[in-house]
């Protein structure tokens, strides 16, 4: 399995851990997770990217396509623990300026609670 997604729920927060490679094949699973209506019950989605070893435009596209819906519902989407090479892919398209990417879990929690 190229991509494993696990979710941990703490009060009004989902901590989503991505493990593997998000490409045109595996990003379908991520899209299914983010499309789940259950997710709209939470106000914060913290995405742990430590084990995300690769992302292609298909993976970015999944986040791009849900971003507005989350913003409209006032759900905060925050990425943390992102590897430099993966962050670089967000930066090439300027997505680091349009999405919230922070260094670690503590910072993600702080920003989520602002």
């Amino acid at each position, binding site marked *: 399995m190229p991509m494993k997604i696990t979710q941990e729920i703490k009060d009004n927060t989902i901590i989503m851990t991505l493990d593997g490679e998000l*490409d045109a094949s595996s990003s379908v699973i991520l899209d299914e997770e983010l499309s789940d209506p259950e997710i709209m019950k939470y106000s914060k989605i913290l995405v742990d990217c430590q084990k995300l070893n690769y992302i292609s*435009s298909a993976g970015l596209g999944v986040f791009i396509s849900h971003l507005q*819906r989350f913003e409209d519902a006032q759900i905060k989407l925050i990425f943390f623990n992102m590897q430099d*090479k993966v962050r670089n892919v967000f930066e*090439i398209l300027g*997505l680091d300026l*349009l999405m919230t990417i922070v260094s670690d879990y503590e910072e993600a929690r702080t920003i989520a609670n602002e």
Partner: protein
Amino acid sequence: MNNSIRVNCTKKNLKLIRDFVTEYLKALALSDILMNQIVLAVDEICANLIIHANHEDPTKYLTLKIQTLKDQVKFEIADQGAAFESNNYKEPNIQEHIRMGKKGGVGIALVNRIMDKVEFLTEGSQNICLLYKKIK
């Protein structure tokens, strides 16, 4: 070193292609970021060919050939699907994509920004995409 690979048009083969490119590039001792960028650019082109040009038809094939020239790496990706119409290509507006909730359409932008030269050629029924990246 084996410098070409031929795979059929299923999305599952993208991982195989990435591993093949990574293995080839290892000998060039590139930084993690540069290595990832190059693998990404090749992956994006192959994903487009598999999904859009060949409609994920497993009876169709694409071939990737890698060469190290003097100070650059050259990738040649050939298939026989529908040709990419590079004349009709428009750079995406990412903010617009976010507003519209659009999923696709940013792959070629990544390729254009990563690679030094990107060419699309058609020779008879064969389409060839050429990617060049300076590595020194």
